[in-house]
C-alpha cells in the first residue's frame, strides 16, 4: 500500500550507480589534467542539480506513467482529460442503473483554464503597477528612489504565508478596512472569499518579481542616450517611447516570466483569501498528493504543468533572445 515503496529496487541502484559514476569521472578528470581545473568547481552544483532537480523530474515522469502497482499505464493522463475516467469505469462495473452517472469530468481542465486566466490577470496587473513603480525608483531625480527599493524588499523578508494570512485581518467583514468604512458611516463590503481577494493576494506576493527586473534594466540604461534624444528634439513622451521603453523590454520579459510562472502554480492563497471556494492548479496537485494520496495522477498533473511552463518560457525567450533581462528566461 505504501506509495514510497512503489519504486522498483533498480531505481535506487541506478541512482547509486549514477552518483558513483560522477565521483569516478571527477577523479579521472583530476588525474588526467594533473590538477584541479576551475570548471571542476561547478561539480557540487551539478551534483545538486542532478539530485534535486533532474532526479525528481524523472520520478514525476515515472509516477505519471505507472499505476498504483507500478505497471505502465496512460490512465493518469486520461484522468487529466476526463477527471471521472476512473470512477466512470467503476460505475460501469456496478450495473446499468448507474450509467446515468457516467459523464466526462471537467475538473482538471476547468481548474487549469481558471489558473491560466488568473495568472494572466495577475501578470497584467503586476506589469501595470510595477512598471511605473520601477520607473520612479530608477529615476535619478527622485531622491526617495532607493528608499522605495528598500521598502519593497523588507516585506519579502517575511514568510509569504504569514503575509497572506495578515491580509485576512484587513479584509474580513469585521476586519480593519470594513471597520474603518463602518466608522465613516459607509456600508461595509465583502472583500474576502472571492476571486478579487485571491487576485489581490497574488499581485501583492508577486509584484516585487515584476518590479526588480524592470528596475535593474532601467538603472543599467545609459543616461546619455536620454540626453542625446532630448538634444535631438524629442519631448519626454517621445524619449520614453523611442528610448526608455525599448531598452527596458528585457526587464519586462524577465518580470513577466517571473510573475507568470509562480502565479499559475499558486496554492494556499485561494484557500486562505478565497475561502477554498475556488481551487487553482497548485491546490489541485496538492489535493491529489496529500489528501487523496494519488501520486500517479498528481504526477501527471505536475508534468502537464511543467510542459505548459516550458512552452510559455520558450515563447518568451523569442522576445529576449540575448537573455538581457537577467537571463531568467
Amino acid at each position: 500500500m505504501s506509495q514510497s515503496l512503489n519504486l522498483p529496487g533498480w531505481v535506487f541502484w541506478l541512482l547509486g550507480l549514477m552518483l558513483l559514476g560522477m565521483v569516478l569521472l571527477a577523479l579521472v578528470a583530476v588525474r588526467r589534467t594533473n590538477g584541479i581545473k576551475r570548471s571542476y568547481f561547478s561539480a557540487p552544483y551539478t551534483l545538486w542539480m542532478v539530485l534535486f532537480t533532474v532526479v525528481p523530474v524523472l520520478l514525476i515522469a515515472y509516477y505519471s506513467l505507472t499505476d498504483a502497482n507500478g505497471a505502465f499505464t496512460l490512465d493518469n493522463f486520461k484522468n487529466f482529460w476526463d477527471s471521472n475516467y476512473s470512477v466512470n469505469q467503476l460505475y460501469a462495473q456496478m450495473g446499468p442503473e448507474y450509467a446515468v452517472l457516467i459523464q466526462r469530468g471537467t475538473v482538471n481542465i476547468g481548474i487549469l483554464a481558471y489558473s491560466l486566466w488568473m495568472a494572466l490577470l495577475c501578470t497584467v496587473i503586476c506589469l501595470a503597477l510595477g512598471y511605473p513603480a520601477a520607473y520612479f525608483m530608477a529615476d535619478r531625480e527622485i531622491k526617495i528612489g532607493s528608499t522605495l527599493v528598500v521598502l519593497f524588499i523588507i516585506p519579502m523578508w517575511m514568510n509569504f504565508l504569514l503575509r497572506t494570512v495578515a491580509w485576512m485581518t484587513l479584509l474580513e467583514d469585521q476586519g480593519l478596512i470594513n471597520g474603518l468604512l463602518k466608522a465613516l458611516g459607509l456600508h461595509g463590503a465583502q472583500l474576502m472569499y472571492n476571486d478579487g481577494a485571491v487576485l489581490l493576494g497574488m499581485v501583492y506576493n508577486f509584484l516585487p518579481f515584476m518590479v526588480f527586473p524592470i528596475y535593474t534594466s532601467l538603472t543599467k540604461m545609459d543616461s546619455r542616450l536620454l540626453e542625446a534624444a532630448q538634444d535631438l528634439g524629442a519631448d519626454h513622451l517621445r524619449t520614453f517611447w523611442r528610448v526608455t521603453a525599448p531598452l527596458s523590454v528585457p526587464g519586462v520579459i524577465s518580470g513577466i516570466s517571473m510573475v507568470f510562472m509562480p502565479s499559475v502554480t499558486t496554492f494556499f492563497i485561494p484557500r486562505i483569501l478565497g475561502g477554498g471556494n475556488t481551487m487553482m492548479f497548485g491546490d489541485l496537485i496538492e489535493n491529489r498528493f496529500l489528501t487523496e494520496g494519488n501520486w500517479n495522477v498528481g504526477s501527471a498533473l505536475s508534468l502537464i504543468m511543467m510542459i505548459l511552463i516550458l512552452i510559455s518560457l520558450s515563447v518568451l525567450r523569442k522576445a529576449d533572445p540575448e537573455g538581457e533581462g537577467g537571463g531568467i528566461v
Partner: protein
Amino acid sequence: MRKNLIRTLVLLMVLCLPLAGLAENAVNVYNWEDYISQETLDMFTAETGITVNMMNFTTNEDMLVKVRNSPSSFDVVFPSDYCIERMIAEDLIAPIDFANVPNMQYIDPNLLKPTYDPTGEYSVPYMWGTVGILYNKTMVDGPVTSWSVLFDTKYKNNVFMIDSIRDCLGVTLMYLGYSMNTRDPLELNAAKQLLIQQKKDGIVKAYQVDETKDKMVAGEAALALVWSGDAQYAIDLNPDLAYVVPDEGSNIWVDGMVIPKAAKNKENAEKFIDFMCRPDIAQLNCEEIWYSSPNTAAIQLMGEDYIGNLTMNPSQEIIDRCEFFMDIQDFIQIYNAMWLDIKSA
C-alpha cells in the same frame, strides 16, 4: 576578539552534540491542530524526561497519506474511528501492550471494544464528539433544528463548511435521509448536487477547518458546520453562539491514540498514551480543547461544569440519532471525485 568569538562558537557547537544525543529519548506525536494542552506535554517531559515532538494534521485523509508514506516517523497518532479501522485493515498499526497503560482503567468501558477496533487491541480513546451546527443567535431566526438551514438562501454568504470530504458529504447524506456511510453512488450524487447547489446559490462563505472557530467568535458568519469541541471553544468566547446537533441526526466520532507498526519508540509511545489517560491530565486536555472525554475519572473531577453541558455531554437521545463513520474502503475514490466536483464547481 574574532578568534575568541569563533572559539566560543565551536565550543557551543561541541556542547550541543550531547544535547542532540539526549533528544533521542523522544516520542514523535502526530496530532490534530489545536488538540492538546501544551501544559500536559510540559508535565510529561518534566516527569519522564521524554521530549515530545509534536506534528499536526488537519484532516484524517491527510494524516493517513502521511502515515502510509513515512510510518516510522511517528510513535503516537490520533486518527478518528473510521481511519483506525482503515489502518488496522492496512496493517499500519500495532497492538498496544495494555500492561504498560494502567490508566486505561479510567476509560469508559462502553468505548473499549468499539466497532472500528472490535478486539480493542489497537487504540485507546482520547476524545469523542459530534458534528453539528454552530450558529449566531443574533443573526439566525429562531432555534436551529435541521440541516436545512445550511441550504437556505436566506443565509446567503453566511455559512462556513468544513473543508473535509466525509464530514461535508456525510451531513448532507444524513439530511437527505441516507446513511453517512453509503456506498450507493446515486445517493452520493444527490448529496453532491445539493452541495453544488448550495455553493452556486452563494450560501457558502468558505470551506475551512481550523479557522472557523475564531471567525465565528468574531461574527464573520451566521452558521457553521463544526465539530463539537470547536463549538464549545467558540461559545465560551462569544455567548451569542449556540450549538445544535440537528434532528435528522449527525456524525458521532471517537479519536483514538494508536501506535504505528514501524514506530521507533514504542515504549515511550505507551508511556505517553498512559499519561494522557491519567485523570488530571485528561481533565487539563478536556478543559483546553472542549471535546467530550472518554475518561470517567476526569469527568468526576470536572463535575457539573462538564456533566451539565449539552455540547460536551450530549444526552442519550442526541447520541442515539448519530451515526459513526465506517471505513468505506475503495469507494473513497468516488467520494474524492465528487468532492473535487463540488470544490471546483
